[in-house]
Every structure is written in C-alpha cells, then in structure tokens.
C-alpha cells in the first residue's frame, strides 16, 4: 500500500496545511519536523535565551495550529503565517513582562566543553562577545530586535518580515538599520580593528 501513501516530505507547507484542515494528523507531523527547530530558535532568541520558556511557546504555537488549522488561508505562505503567530506571542510576553516590570533575562549559558586546540584567549573573547551580543540584543527595542532576528537569524526576506510584523518594508529596513547601528556601538570593543567613529 506504499504506493497510495502520501509522500509528505514532497508536499509544500501549504498543501500540508490543506491536509491538516482535512483532519490528516500525519501532515501536522511533517510540518512539525520542518518548523519546530526554527520556531524554538526564534523563541529562544526573542525571549532572552530561556530554553524552557522557548519550549513552552513552541509547544503552544503548534498546539494552536493543530487546534485551529482552518484559520490558515492556503493562498498565503505558511511560514509567514507561522512567524506572525510567533511574533504576536512574543509581543504578548513583552506586554506581560512590562506590566510586571520585568526585563528580558540574561542567558545562563551552559558550560560547553572546552576545546583543547582553541586558544583560551580567543575562546574567552568569543564567550565575552556572545554575552555582549546577547545583552545588546536584549537592550534593543522589541520591534528592532524582532526584525534583526528575523533577518539575520531566520534569514527571511524584507517583504516577508514586513508581512510578519505587519508594517511597510521601509519601516523594516529602517528598523534593521537602527538595530545594526546600535549593536555595532555596543560591540565596538570586540571589533579587532577598533575603528573610532
């Protein structure tokens, strides 16, 4: 009967959503395989690199899709719709934190095994740089952080980002420019050239 089975990995995201709307749970499994890791990464970066919080939100996001697949318009791009929901969830979290006067927490990086062949100074520099970048990202305005992560971590196009965050493309580019400028100021001490601007 293998001939008659749907080859989910050959289907587009939108077709899989159409199957899911028809009650096909296996299509959901394929979508989860494709996007769970990316969504986890997005939440992880957007919510202060809290792995547990990111897992909870990834789970909730996919549960939302499983419960309400009919909300998806199959004429739209699935990834855009998915990131839109994720983005709105992050905004809700920020609102909740602002009410509680809470700020994005600093990540508690797990101790990674030390590489023996790496220069300890380089390694230390790298760790310091990572921490500085995380802090700099945390200090960005929410809208700028969102655009920056979507552009340079998720590697999405400007047009798609503008659809996700629901604002004009020019606004996205502007946010990216300001985010990059602020980050470069924060990270100037780590720049080997240390050019004074």
């Amino acid at each position, binding site marked *: 009967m293998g001939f008659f089975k*749907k080859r989910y990995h050959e289907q587009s995201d939108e077709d899989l959503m159409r199957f899911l709307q028809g009650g*096909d749970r296996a299509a959901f499994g394929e979508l989860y395989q494709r996007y769970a890791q990316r969504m986890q990464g997005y939440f992880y970066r957007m919510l202060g690199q809290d792995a547990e919080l990111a*897992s909870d939100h*990834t*789970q909730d996001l996919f549960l939302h899709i499983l419960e309400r697949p009919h909300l998806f318009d199959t004429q739209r791009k699935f990834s855009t719709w998915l990131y839109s929901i994720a983005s709105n969830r992050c905004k809700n979290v920020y609102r909740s934190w602002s009410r509680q006067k809470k700020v994005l927490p600093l990540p508690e990086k797990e101790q990674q095994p030390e590489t023996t062949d790496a220069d300890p100074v380089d390694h230390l520099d790298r760790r310091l740089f990572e921490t500085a970048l995380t802090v700099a990202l945390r200090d960005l305005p929410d809208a700028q952080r969102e655009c920056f992560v979507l552009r340079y971590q998720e590697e999405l196009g400007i047009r798609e980002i503008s659809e996700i965050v629901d604002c004009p493309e020019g606004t996205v580019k502007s946010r990216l420019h300001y985010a990059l400028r602020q980050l470069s100021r924060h990270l100037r001490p780590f720049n080997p050239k240390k*050019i004074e601007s």
Partner: protein
Amino acid sequence: MNSESIQWDLEFFLKSRSFQELSPEQQSWVLQQISQPEYESQRWTLLASADYFRADSVPPPPPLERVLQRYERRHPRQGNLSWLAQISTWRVPAWQLTMALICGWLFGQWNIGQHHSGLSLVPQIVYQTDTIVREIPVYIGLTSKGKASYQSASEEKAAGQTHSSPSTRPRGTTNSIARDRDLLDLTVGMQ
C-alpha cells in the same frame, strides 16, 4: 532613489564587500549614508552576528508526541471517525481504486440478486407418494321403487346379515360413494 531602497542596497554592500572592495561610485554613494569607519564597524557586527547565530546551538524543541498528548488531553476523541475526514485528502489513485472496488462489489450484489429473484423450473421425479389408491367395485341396480341402489363388494358380502358400519368401510370410500349416489339420483330422475 528613496531612503528605503538605500537601506536595502547598503545592507547588500555590508554583507558582501568591504569598503575597499566597493567601486568609487559605490563608495561615494555609501559615504552619503554613513562614514567609512561606521561602514566597517557595521559590516563587522553584521558578519560576527551572523556567525554567532549560525554557531550558537539552540536547545532542541519538545518532541512531537508531547504536543499530540496535550492535544488529546484537551480534545478527547469522541469516536474513531478521523479516517472519514482523511478520505477527502487521499490521492487520486486511491480514489480510483476505491471507487472501482465499490462499483464492482455493487454490480456483483446486483447480479446475484437477479439470479435468485427469477422462477427456475426444474423437473423433479417423485418416487414416493403419500396417496394410496384403492379400487373398489360398486354394483349398481334399480330398486323396486325405481330408485337406484348401490352396494360395494364388501357391503354385498355382508348383505342381509348385518348392515355395514362406517367403521368397517375402507378408508376414503365414503365420499366417493356419496358422490356416486348423487350421480345415480340424478340419472334416475332424468329417466
């Protein structure tokens, strides 16, 4: 060129080439937006951040089973009808095969029904019967009064001695005698 497209092109330059690698026209265009040190600084930040995003390991997402279990807890199944919903998503070859099987089955059922509903005339030879035929001679004569009288052979034997009782008559003869009597009455009456 508006400011939106300038940002887009600037990003492309930042990602792809250093300030020295830009053509003089491109350099002059970039310098209208930002200074050279700023360009170099932003370029370094962009590339370093991209490297960091690529290298930094993100913890794995929760397993799919956990999501499905949560869904099952929230929406307990009311009946095993999910396969019905899945039918609409089957691929075309499966539809064709299914329809062919259903049509074949229906045709078979209809064909069998046709054979059973008609009258089939099959000759049968009956070797055993449940009817016993017995010949009884009946003697018919006229009485002095011009009426027909009748006596069966057994009754004739017992004539003058005792009147035969119905119990002594052979079984099945009473009705035929009565019928014969009626016929005789009719015949004599006509004479």
